[in-house]
């Protein structure tokens, strides 16, 4: 990094500290969260903005993001019709809407979920020891500077608290709307904590969408999955092309708990998902998949750490990336099998389809194994459309464009089709597959 670049990041760090001071003195800050806000900014001062030499950011250039001056986003007005149009039909009565991270009761409708679905502000929920501990503990070992910033500016996060054995017929859509301004760039710090009691089941669909470009979403989600509970989380990132999106998802899965997490990202200036998943007790199960289609200069990066902390846990990962134009994608995933975590079963597969000469794909599937009776595999492929397959389709009378479109579409579709929510599948057809059709038309 050149001298001026160092100075620039330093000045940005000072700017963040000034913004934080202003935040603590302002109306947005909430007294019960103050200790967490302060711990968060301390962590930020320690970690500092990343540069390429940080092993966690080898493939991600956050320079532009760190170099942009952001103001905290307000709860600005939002077009109700615009919001309504982004609610999935199946979730009409099970949707929570957030504008710039703040829960909007008037736009949300949770009537279809019954009494066992509880949602409350984190500033009220911190009286719960377990919740407070989750928020504080996570900060002590926080290695992601953006997640630390989320804690530093946390004021309108929510807790979804599901009692033991509760189940719901419908999925819950969490619609995060970001509104940029015409003046300067704004940032929001959505925070979500989901706690599932024993044997409870929940299906959530976090959807990130934005009205105008100049914004950054810095989300942190915590999942506490108790014994035998299960979460299906299908996340859709369809922010404006001019925005930034960084997220961190922290998960603790207890005995026989399950997390089926899928994410689909449409890409923007920079999207980075960071997963830190702890399979804490025997029988915990994880499925994590990601799909993306990138055009122009869009970027999507995934950074994954899966900790197998107990015997008999299973983790499956599958990523499929289609990269076109000057798109950039990276998957940096590590599976850590702790000492004593025998009979672990872990698979990891990353497939990349490169459609342009200027596309860029970086992959790093890591394994760190401290136990001997385990089955762990990982694999990565980078390639392009198979000439033989293309030829085969052409001999059947398909045009080159159609044949290519069919092959690329089916590459991501094999993942999209596994999503058990028809609304989401339709949405992804719109935001991901359309991009490919446009390309080959």
């Amino acid at each position: 990094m050149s001298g001026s670049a160092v100075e620039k990041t330093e000045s940005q760090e000072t700017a963040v500290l000034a913004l934080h001071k202003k935040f603590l003195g302002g109306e947005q800050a909430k007294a019960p969260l103050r200790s967490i806000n302060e711990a968060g900014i301390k962590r930020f001062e320690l970690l500092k903005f990343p540069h390429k030499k940080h092993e966690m950011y080898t493939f991600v250039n956050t320079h532009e993001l760190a170099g942009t001056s952001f103001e905290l986003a307000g709860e600005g007005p939002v077009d109700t019709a615009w919001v309504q149009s982004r609610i999935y039909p199946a979730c009409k009565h099970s949707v929570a809407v957030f504008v710039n991270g703040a829960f909007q009761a008037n736009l949300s409708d949770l009537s279809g979920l019954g009494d066992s679905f509880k949602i409350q502000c984190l500033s009220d929920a911190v009286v719960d020891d377990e919740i407070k501990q989750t928020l504080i503990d996570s900060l002590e070992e926080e290695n992601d500077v953006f997640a630390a910033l989320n804690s530093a500016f946390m004021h309108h996060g929510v807790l979804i608290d599901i009692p033991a054995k509760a189940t719901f017929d419908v999925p819950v859509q969490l619609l995060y709307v970001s509104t940029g301004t015409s003046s300067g760039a704004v940032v929001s710090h959505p925070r979500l904590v989901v706690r599932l009691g024993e044997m409870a089941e929940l299906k959530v669909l976090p959807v990130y969408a934005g009205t105008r470009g100049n914004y950054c979403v810095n989300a942190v989600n915590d999942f506490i999955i108790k014994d035998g509970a299960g979460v299906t989380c299908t996340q859709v990132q369809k922010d404006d092309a001019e925005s930034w999106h960084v997220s961190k998802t922290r998960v603790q899965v207890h005995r026989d708990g399950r997390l089926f997490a899928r994410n689909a990202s449409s890409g923007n200036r920079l999207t980075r998902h960071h997963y830190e998943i702890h399979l804490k007790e025997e029988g915990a199960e994880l499925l994590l998949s990601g799909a993306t289609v990138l055009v122009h200069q869009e970027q999507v990066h995934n950074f994954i750490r899966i900790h197998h902390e107990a015997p008999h846990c299973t983790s499956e990962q599958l990523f499929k990336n289609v990269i076109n134009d000057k798109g950039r994608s990276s998957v940096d995933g590590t599976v850590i099998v702790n000492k004593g975590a025998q009979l672990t079963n872990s698979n990891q597969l990353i497939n990349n389809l490169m459609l342009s000469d200027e596309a860029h794909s970086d992959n790093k599937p890591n394994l760190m194994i401290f136990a001997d009776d385990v089955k762990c595999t990982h694999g990565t492929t980078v390639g392009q459309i198979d000439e033989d397959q293309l030829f085969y389709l052409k001999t059947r009378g398909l045009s080159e464009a159609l044949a290519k479109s069919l092959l690329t579409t089916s590459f991501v579709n094999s993942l999209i089709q596994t999503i058990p929510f028809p609304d989401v599948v339709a949405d992804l057809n719109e935001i991901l597959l359309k991009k490919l059709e446009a390309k080959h038309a």
Partner: protein
Amino acid sequence: MADENSSKTASVSQVMEKTEYKYGFKTDIDSDTLPKGLSEDVVRAISAKKNEPQFMLDFRLKAYRKWLTMKEPAWPNVHYPKIDFQNISYYSAPKPKKKLESLDEVDPELLRTFEKLGIPLDEQKRLSNVAVDAVFDSVSVATTHKKKLMEVGIIFCPISEALQEYPELVEEYLGTVVPIGDNFYAALNSAVFTDGSFVYIPPDTISPMELSTYFRINTEETGQFERTLIICAENSYVSYLEGCTAPQFDTNQLHAAVVELVTLDNAEIKYSTVQNWYAGDPETGKGGIYNFVTKRGKCLGDNSKISWTQVETGSAITWKYPSCILQGDNTQGEFYSVALTNGHMQADTGTKMIHIGKNTKSSIISKGISADHSSNSYRGLVKVNKGAVNARNYTQCDSMLVGDQCSAHTFPYIETANNSVQLEHEASTSKISEEQLFYFEQRGISRENAITAVINGFCKEVFKQLPMEFAVEAQKLLTLKLENSVG
């Protein structure tokens, strides 16, 4: 007399403790040893003692100044106490190894190892530096070989000799593959290296024999900072062997060698290493060698090929990535590795394949076996630059864990910047299953032999790349190393 007796029965670790350099043990500095410490004067003194041409001194000084600005890297997955670089003497004139009268004087532990490896008696004598009859004297063997090589025009000599005899060749290629500021240890090596091998294969020449380091230096201790440079000119081929299966002891704990290979059009270099340095006390892990080596080959000419084969079974810490820069069009890089760690050994090894030219191909086969309390990491980079159209890579890295106290890690980096590439990476981790062993045992094969069979099967793909005699010895070496680790 009592002393002599005890040395005969001493265990390997005891011998090591004795041979380990004890600071302050030797107070009288003889004129051929520079005092401890590193400074510009020391670099100048080394160069002067070797009577080197001016360009070499400039090279060393530039490297030293660069080194001063660099930080010791902390990213590898290995742990060791901080090295005090001012507490090392950077030059000591080569001394002959102590000659022994007969094999009876050799450490019995060493003899047991020889026997297990199946090394012939005369060879045993040579390796342990026992005086041998004229016919088998290593010096005469070396002379015969040298004569044969000179007939076809191959230069194979110590690099210090090459600097005197062929300075223009050294100047043209030295530092072109591993630049002086490449990494912390390469910079240090560039500043203070004292010896190593130099090989030049002239155009249109197939080397009539496999070149091996132990033809060159056998009566002298190998240097702590070795430098090897191999140049293979157009349409030529050479196979180079480094190290040997016999256990190697050395008084220096830190080994920071640099190896550079260059192939011109249609040339091929095959570089095989078997490394079995002292790994430290098996109980505590103390006293073993740190093997921090930078090995890199550059396929400069079109259609050339570099192949690395390594069998790493020793050293307390092995930290090296034999790499290929595939610069010419249609060039090929290969990397075959078996890394075995036991006791408290740590290994962070793998390769880098940098695809620059068109239609370049590389393949990586890595087998890691960790036992006892050891830690074994594969770290590899496959990088395809924008211009490297139709690049192909196949990577397979398998790990085997023996026992529940060891660890195995894989850190592959795969970076691609164009759309005509095909890359595949596969990895798996497994253990020797009870079912496999049971199957052998019920057919009357002992548990020990069963383990040998399974492990050799696991490493077969790599062993078949080694020259015949080496392969046989390497197989036995693995078996020997894993003794008492399993079951």
